[in-house]
């Protein structure tokens, strides 16, 4: 029987909340291959895939798990994601993973790699230091060494040796996935009532645990079903860009709350690994070099990436323009250094263009949305009532 839209969204929701990683366990049982986790925000999943490994995106446990042991590892002024990651490690939920890669995101995630290594010394634990120098001859050479090192370790732990042809094939598979993601994001910009963010979010997030081929099939199916649903009609909501939620993810209830408060989220930072690279990665020539070049030259702007020659906040303004948004929601996790340190610069750029914004914070386990609902609702109303547009 063909899967209906509600059934597909239900399946995606279950996958996105599956912190016990039951789908990953099933995949491992079926294939006997390795599964390696990774923290936000970006890792080159193509390398894992080419080595026969399932890359598994880790985003904590949201509001589905009470954190007890994890809190004993972190002071009150540190964000929530490392606590839930440790909790999941200690309660056995991540046992099916053969290792975890911690990309350079901030000092907390960097040090989490060390805590993890001390707690689970037999598992692979790798810090992926991504370059902040974007010159091919410097940052590029360094990054290539980093990737080769990780590939070597995966091979030593039972993954396939990284071969050029396999990597080229993996790049093709991920290019297809990226194309579908871009297509969905564009469709949402054009008709956010057809692809509500709370729905699109879980469909995208399912890609953190599914094999990429299955995820691409899900995206295709979702695209077709959502577009065909004639019941979905536009409402008088304010079009907003949501920014700041690129690492620790908000609870689904928060996204639903924002939409119910009168906002159409037409652009966001959620699950950035899926759209970190703006375009396709070249499939001709040396595939590893192509991945490196794509990272250096085709990554999105992000608070975790050094803004060298560019102007801070400019890309956010561009996103507002391209999505025809009427305002911006700064929606960052509490104690998130990259997001919160970036915010004044981004806000200044918006002020320069008289683009309205409002800001609030959350934790992945935030359970009360009343205040945020009022704030977002007032913001949306003010846009609809008094905006020059």
């Amino acid at each position, binding site marked *: 029987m063909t899967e209906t839209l509600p059934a597909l969204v239900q399946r995606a929701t279950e996958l996105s909340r599956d912190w016990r990683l039951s789908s990953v366990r099933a995949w491992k049982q079926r294939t006997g291959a390795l599964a390696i986790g990774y923290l936000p925000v970006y890792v080159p999943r193509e390398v894992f895939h080419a080595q026969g490994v399932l890359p598994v995106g880790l985003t904590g446990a949201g509001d589905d798990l009470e954190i007890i042991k994890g809190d004993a590892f972190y002071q009150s002024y540190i964000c929530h994601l490392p606590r839930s990651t440790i909790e999941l490690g200690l309660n056995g939920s991540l046992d099916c993973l053969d290792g975890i890669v911690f990309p350079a995101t901030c000092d907390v995630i*960097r040090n989490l790699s060390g805590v993890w290594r*001390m707690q689970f010394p037999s598992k692979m634990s790798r*810090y992926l230091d991504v370059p902040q120098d974007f010159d091919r001859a410097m940052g590029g050479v360094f990054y290539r060494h980093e990737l080769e090192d990780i590939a070597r370790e995966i091979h030593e732990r039972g993954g396939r040796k990284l071969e050029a042809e396999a990597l080229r094939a993996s790049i093709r598979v991920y290019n297809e996935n990226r194309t579908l993601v871009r297509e969905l994001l564009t469709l949402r910009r054009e008709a956010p009532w057809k692809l509500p963010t709370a729905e699109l979010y879980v469909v995208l997030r399912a890609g953190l645990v599914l094999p990429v081929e299955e995820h691409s099939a899900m995206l295709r199916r979702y695209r077709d079903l959502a577009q065909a649903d004639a019941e979905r009609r536009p409402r008088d909501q304010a079009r907003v860009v949501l920014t700041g939620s690129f690492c620790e993810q908000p609870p689904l209830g928060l996204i639903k709350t924002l939409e119910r408060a009168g906002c159409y989220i037409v652009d966001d930072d959620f699950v950035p690994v899926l759209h970190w690279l703006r375009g396709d990665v070249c499939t001709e020539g040396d595939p590893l070099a192509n991945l490196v070049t794509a990272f250096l030259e085709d990554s999105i702007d992000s608070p975790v990436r*050094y803004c060298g020659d560019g102007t801070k906040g400019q890309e956010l303004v561009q996103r507002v323009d391209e999505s025809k948004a009427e305002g911006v929601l700064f929606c960052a996790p509490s104690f998130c250094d990259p997001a919160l*340190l970036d915010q004044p610069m981004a806000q200044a750029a918006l002020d320069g263009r008289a683009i309205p914004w409002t800001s609030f914070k959350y934790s992945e386990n935030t359970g009360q949305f009343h205040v945020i609902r009022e704030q977002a609702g007032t913001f949306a109303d003010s846009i609809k009532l008094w905006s020059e547009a």
Partner: protein
Amino acid sequence: MSVSTKNPPLAATAKDDSQVRQKQMIAAHYARLARASESGEKNVYTFVPGNLTELLRSFDLLPVLPEINALQSGMRGKSAEYIALAEKLGHSEDVCTYVKCDIGMLKSGNVGPTGERLPSPDLLLLSYTGCFTFMKWFELLKQEYQCPVVMLHVPYQAEGRITDSMRAYVTAQIRQKLIPALEQVAGRKYDEDRLKECLARSAQAEEDLVWVLQSAKNRPSPIDAWFGAVYYVGPIFSAFRGTPEAVEYYRALRVEIQERLTKKLGPVTPDGMMTEEKYRLVIEGPPNWTSFREFWRMFAEEGAVAVASTYTKVGGMYDFGFRHDPERPLETMAEYCMGCYTNLDLSTRVGILTRYMQEYEADGLLVNSVKSCNSFSAGQLAMLREVESRTGRPVGFIESDLVDPRYFSASNIKNRLESFLQMIAQKRGGAA
């Protein structure tokens, strides 16, 4: 009845000569910076960890260290108003208070801690070493100044070692990006011989500094290796590494400490010389600056001496053998940057703390966890447990902040410190 008894009155003495001299050096540097517009001297804003002072000095460029400005502002009671101003301007209450203090100072006219206006930077050298916030900090400053910015990305020692790839990456950035930028600002060519001379002087000063820090292995320790050592590392962490003044300072400091050692004297504290050393502590984390002397007194009154600390290694880790090597000028600077304490992985940090506990015969490890510094703080609780399990010695935990006085709760800290010291005393069988 409390197990711990208060230390006998501290013997009143004048400040250490070295402390006075250090203050004079720092003040003279600020005065020189204030005169820069008249003298025509150029300056470079950069950070303490991974600072390349020898290279800057070889171009006759003056370093300006925003963290030093912030901590000095904290010690002089200025940080609260600067932070309040930054928060009013939209900076989150959650983020680093050094950054907010610096932004607030800048927005208040960039008047430095000595009351004189600091010059605007001729170059921002973002030495991204061991702290992610540095990157955001200089992105913020970049918006305020019309000057070039150079990013020096220093990879993290995640595997506890420096690889050839890491060394080559940093060296290439210094050679191909930083040096040309410095040539441009200074208006002169890179002079490697001059740099080598600076590096040779650095090694001399480092040798004496290590001797001084390791003097704490003696009983009683002639120094306090956290509060007191903040003054000792001042010149080498800030603007003076590689200069003749630094060589002279550290030679004189060594003579001073040798004299204290010969006389079996304890460290000088805010209220004079400590007469009885009761507790020997290893300290992890930076101190609080807004109540620095009050904080120090809490330890001194209990007869608690820091015999080793990690904060005194953030600007360079010299006590396990690293010295700047003038024969490999760029490579040695790259290795220096990567070796700074907060650029080391947690297992290595645990290894260092464990070694300190053993080699300095410490009674316990105390962590001062500061809200502002995730580079230090994230993971400290796991480190604490690991050190406890490896050494079997008591560990303690207090919380404060760098320069935000709202996060310094004296009674809370004092309670926790006293409990920790009691725990040590009980472990000794009430011998204290």
